[in-house]
């Protein structure tokens, strides 16, 4: 790993100032992806801006009907939060399935979504639950946030400060775990907001996406049988040594049905 200059700002404003001034500076949240990437020399930032000591980025709070999770809130905290478990148990469950317990003690929601790994779990939660990503500059609807493989709508210097969730009537997250990495080969979040149904899929494609046909079918009637005959086109999906696109397309269907069954 190449050496770098380490910064530990105490506020979001300070962090933004550093990344604004240093072109090659990289924000670091939990570091669970960044550090292994640096070890392999796939990333060699000149500067690291550690967001770990910014109190305003941490914690889970209710804001009216919403639940706001600070960007630096760790997966373990979301998984065990009484607030989250009560309001959106599917989100707590999702967080509890990320990586392993030690990783969940470091990894954060803000880091996960900013990195936008196509196989990460949180993107399915954020998109499926129709969350709003809050940054130091604006609010970004989940549907607009994830723009591609490891790509988001974040501008240079823009820092995720939190994610605002509204509680669905019901939601469920199903995951087929990668046998080695523990990432999602396929992860499906199904959420019901009244008659509005959202189905977000991670792992299967180059970026999280919504299964529109499934959503339409489920919005017409929220039942497992509504998904019969609705399939995902394998042509758009990833294929690798662990799962072909065909298989991923099939798994999306199975997991979506299971998620619907769990909350029907």
């Amino acid at each position, binding site marked *: *790993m*190449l*050496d*770098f*200059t*380490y910064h*530990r700002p105490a506020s979001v404003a300070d962090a933004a100032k550093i990344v604004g001034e240093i072109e090659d500076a990289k924000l670091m949240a939990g*570091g*669970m992806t960044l*550090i*292994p990437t*640096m*070890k*392999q020399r796939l990333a060699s930032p000149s500067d*690291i801006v*550690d967001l*770990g000591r910014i109190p305003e980025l941490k914690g889970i709070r209710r804001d009216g009907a919403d639940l706001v999770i600070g960007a630096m809130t760790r997966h*373990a905290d979301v998984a065990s939060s009484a607030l989250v478990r009560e309001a959106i148990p599917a989100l707590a469950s999702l967080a509890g399935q990320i*990586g*392993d*317990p*030690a*990783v969940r*003690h*470091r990894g954060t929601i803000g880091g996960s979504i900013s990195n936008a790994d196509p196989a990460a779990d949180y993107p399915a939660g954020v998109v499926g639950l129709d969350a709003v990503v809050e940054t130091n500059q604006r609010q970004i609807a989940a549907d607009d946030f994830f723009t591609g493989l490891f790509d988001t709508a974040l501008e240079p210097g823009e820092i995720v400060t939190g994610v605002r969730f509204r509680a669905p009537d019901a939601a469920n997250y199903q995951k087929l775990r990668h046998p*080695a*990495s*523990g990432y999602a080969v396929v992860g499906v979040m199904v959420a019901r907001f009244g008659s509005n149904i959202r189905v977000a899929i991670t792992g299967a494609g180059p970026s999280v996406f919504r299964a529109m046909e499934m959503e339409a079918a489920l919005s017409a009637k929220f039942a497992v049988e509504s998904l019969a005959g609705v399939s995902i086109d394998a042509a758009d999906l990833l294929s690798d040594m662990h799962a072909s696109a065909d298989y991923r397309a099939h798994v999306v269907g199975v997991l979506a049905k299971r998620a619907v069954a769990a909350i029907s």
Partner: protein
Amino acid sequence: MNVTLTVNGQAISRDVEPRMLLAEFLRDELRLTGTHVGCDTTQCGCCIVHLDGEAVKSCTLFAVQADGSKVTTIEGLAGTDGALHPVQAAFREHHGLQCGFCTPGMVMMGADIVRRIPGADDETVRHELEGNICRCTGYQGIVEAIVDAAAQARS
């Protein structure tokens, strides 16, 4: 840059390169070689230590991030009188180790599981060990040991 922290109850202050990982800091700077490095992708768990009381993978953490924190390594888990921690004792009783390389991480993870989930059963422990790889034991003795220690913690 300077990093000041407490390791196994002892105050430590050192100047380190920012890129130094906590695992390297413990092993190379402090010569606490009980913490092992078994992979470079945050998968194996050999390097697990407790950071402010919680299990973390010290290979995926810069030493500077631990500034001001309390770190416990396998060397600091037993009591000051030398009495084994219940998880350590249970590993010996249940033959939870063979070559011993994954053992420090397994024990530190085991202690973390026991702390969080007293009374954890076989299935729970197996899932909690997702981030720890052992190549020798088939996990049988490891799981038995942690379940045993978790049962003791509840009683």
